[in-house]
């Protein structure tokens, strides 16, 4: 099998993820699609690392994972905040929404 097949796979996964961001409306699913895109980029980095014969690409992939973890914390915190606001707005004070 050609090693470049990993690159095709990466491109396909990236495209699927990027379309998912446009198509889905649930913000958590949109965020998961973004994670899929980051994973696809990581696969490309690991494959290129093998092609180029150095470990730099793997280091980048490692950094990406750390960055993604931070992004997930912030993103999900924002999503939960909105969730709490909206839900309670329907209980406590509906006027905020009508503005």
């Amino acid at each position, binding site marked *: 099998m050609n090693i470049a097949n990993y*690159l095709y796979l990466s491109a396909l996964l990236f495209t699927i993820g990027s379309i998912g961001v446009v198509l889905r409306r649930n913000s958590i699913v949109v965020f998961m699609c973004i994670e899929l895109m980051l994973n696809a980029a990581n696969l490309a980095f690991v494959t290129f690392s093998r092609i180029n014969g150095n470990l730099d690409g793997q280091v980048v992939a490692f*950094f990406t994972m750390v960055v993604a973890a931070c992004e997930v914390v912030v993103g999900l915190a924002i999503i939960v*905040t909105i969730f709490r606001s909206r839900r309670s707005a329907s209980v406590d004070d509906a006027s905020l929404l009508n503005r």
Partner: protein
Amino acid sequence: MLTTPSFEYLLLSPMLIILAAAVIGVLAEAFLDRNHLPVIQLFISVGAILLALIQIYRIKSSSSTSAAIGSVVIDKATIYLQGTILIIGLLALLLISDQEQFVAQASAIPGSREEQESTSKGSIQTEIYPLLSFALAGMMLFTCASDLITLFVALEVFSLPLYLLAGLSRRRRLLSQEAALKYFLLGAYSSAFFLFGAAFLYGISGSVYLVDISSAVSGGYGNDVFVLIGLIFISVGLLFKISAVPFHAWTPDVYQGAPTSVTAFMAAATKVAAFGAILRIFYVVFSPIANQWRPIISVIAIITMVFGSAVAIAQRDVKRMLAYSSIAHAGFILTAVLALNKSGLSAALFYLTTYGLSTLAAFGIITLIRDATGEVTDLNKWAGLGKKSPLIAGSFAFLLLSFAGIPLTSGFIGKFAIFSAAYETGNIAVVVFGVLSSALAAFFYIRVILLMFVAQSQNDSISIAIPSVKSRIAIGATTAATVILGLFPSLLLNITQSFSIFIK
């Protein structure tokens, strides 16, 4: 075997100071008395920025350029950009420290009793200071990063705090939180594009350093399909940050939803940082294949200018109007990227500074126009403002004229410098569209000015808040800078010319 890596700490010191201030701010948050925190945090942030500015001044003519094992390049342009970001940060900090735009307690549910009580108790979310410092440090690093890893990390370091800050508005909190979510999702989307592009540039060159990628781009490593993929995807990631059309969708909503002082900071400083990186990448890495990307970037610059100016006309909200104007300005600065020469770079640096300062001033003034429920951003209610406060309305009118590029304002000098640089290199079409869209924008800005001074006010509900000393300094300094740089542009033009050097 491992050797101890050598840092050039002096060159990194401006960033390290800001990062240290952020960490100290976090610690202060944890251990110090809540009642004194606002003052302490402001002191830490302002002190750090001043220290960092002193360090910038000290290293302004240093001989060594690469620092942190080649991850960072400190050249003249970097020093200029970092200085600009720090000054904008300092002035924005003065606006932000007027806390009443920020939510008293972000975790309290909007409309709940907890929120009311924490608001009436005057409690304050002082974490915004360390967050702002992190954003500043990330922006400074973004302008000088010279490998893809550092670029990506810096991009995230300055983006994450901004996503959070955008959601902390005191009034219309749901709108603000949704702005934060939108900013976050689209920001993460664009950084995924950036990363995918970076993967292919690494693939072609086997290295993440911009220098190596540059030599790989200029040939010898096979054909340039991978370069093209890398170029396109990295550009998408960066063009998103400067909100160029068609990657602008987040801008109006986020600018409108975020607390106005944060919007001011985002509009001014993010633009400087992101253009710093764009200029470096296009000047250093992609200049050998300029023929391939120039047409695409020209088209993007043209539609950005025209679209931003045209859509601004339809806006009935001041913040949204300035958002579209900032989109249009991104197009003008992109024109300087096309020039790819020293005068283009110098013009871009000049434009970024003047635009950043005028934007800060404009948003600063918006924070002053209020009614019973808070800031008034509806343009219709601004009618007759000129009679209520000629000084404030006059300053705002002057800033709008500067955005439009009317002579004797700094905006005019900036546009003139950029268009003449683009003209030198033969991008006539872009220049023509640029001038046309400036005229289009001027039409609308003048309408706003007429609205403020000529139209009769329909209601007397709006009032002009008396600015605090800090806001007064920030708004006064930025407006004065717009005036002075319009009358004596050579003060700054000489500096930008001598600082417009990128080192590979």
